[in-house]
């Protein structure tokens, strides 16, 4: 799985791993930027029915390799996903 997937202008990259990849049948795709972080899960649920309950509710999110909090409700000063960002859905891990 490469993290060098370059998004086209005005877009960000989203990476899917493990159960997130199984559910979407994709390892990555592009979405239009900017996007407030609180809109990410609703947008993904729109696109992939049942994604939230099955995968997202137990997943974390990174933006450019850093973990970010997902607010339950939109806020004035919330984190924005920008053009060119690399977002990843991180389901519960299982190394070893």
């Amino acid at each position, binding site marked *: *799985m490469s*993290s060098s997937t370059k998004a086209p202008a005005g877009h960000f990259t989203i*990476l899917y*791993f*493990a*159960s997130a*990849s*199984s*559910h979407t*049948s994709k390892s990555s795709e592009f979405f239009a930027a900017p996007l407030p972080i609180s809109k990410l899960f609703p947008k993904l649920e729109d696109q992939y029915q049942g994604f939230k*309950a*099955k*995968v*997202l*509710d*137990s*997943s*974390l999110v*990174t933006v450019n*390799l*850093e*973990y970010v*909090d*997902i607010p339950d409700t939109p806020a004035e000063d919330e984190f924005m996903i920008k053009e060119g960002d690399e977002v*990843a859905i*991180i*389901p*519960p*891990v*299982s*190394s*070893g």
Partner: protein
Amino acid sequence: MPSEISEENCFVALTTDLLDAKQIMDRVRSTTRDNFAGKPVKELEYTSYEPRALQSMLTICKAIVEKHSLTSIAMIHRLGIVPIAEESILIAVSSPHRQAAWKAGEEALEECKQKVEVWKKEEFGGEEGGVWRANRDGATGVRVEKGEEERPAQGPHGPILRPKVPGERGHGAVVRPNAL
């Protein structure tokens, strides 16, 4: 020339040769766990968010070195298909104190299993398909096939044993890189 004796699953030897870690590890290889809840596992497949996983491994290693006053530590995880009875992870530590080394090794493994962005799919063979494992509670993970609605009542990745804290989504505490 080594002199050796073995009985059942115990092997002992004396040698003047250079000690070969792989050779002695091969002696215990068949004891690796090869089933989950009684179901035989055919093989494991690991996938990773590589740059993120490497960062987490480094953060863990630096914290363990500091905590146990180690001389050094090395950690490697195998990706892709790993046949049963082959190692998926190796951790080596050096330390002036033997006890600290054992403790550090175990702790490094536990930290890795909890935090490193690597995912294991267990392949049972037959029609059942693979299952993404979650390193929590020994619960059965998420079946790979789409469209099956059968969920364990307690949640997608196993029973929830305590209330969530803000920002937590089923992994345990939210990991802040470089803040271990």
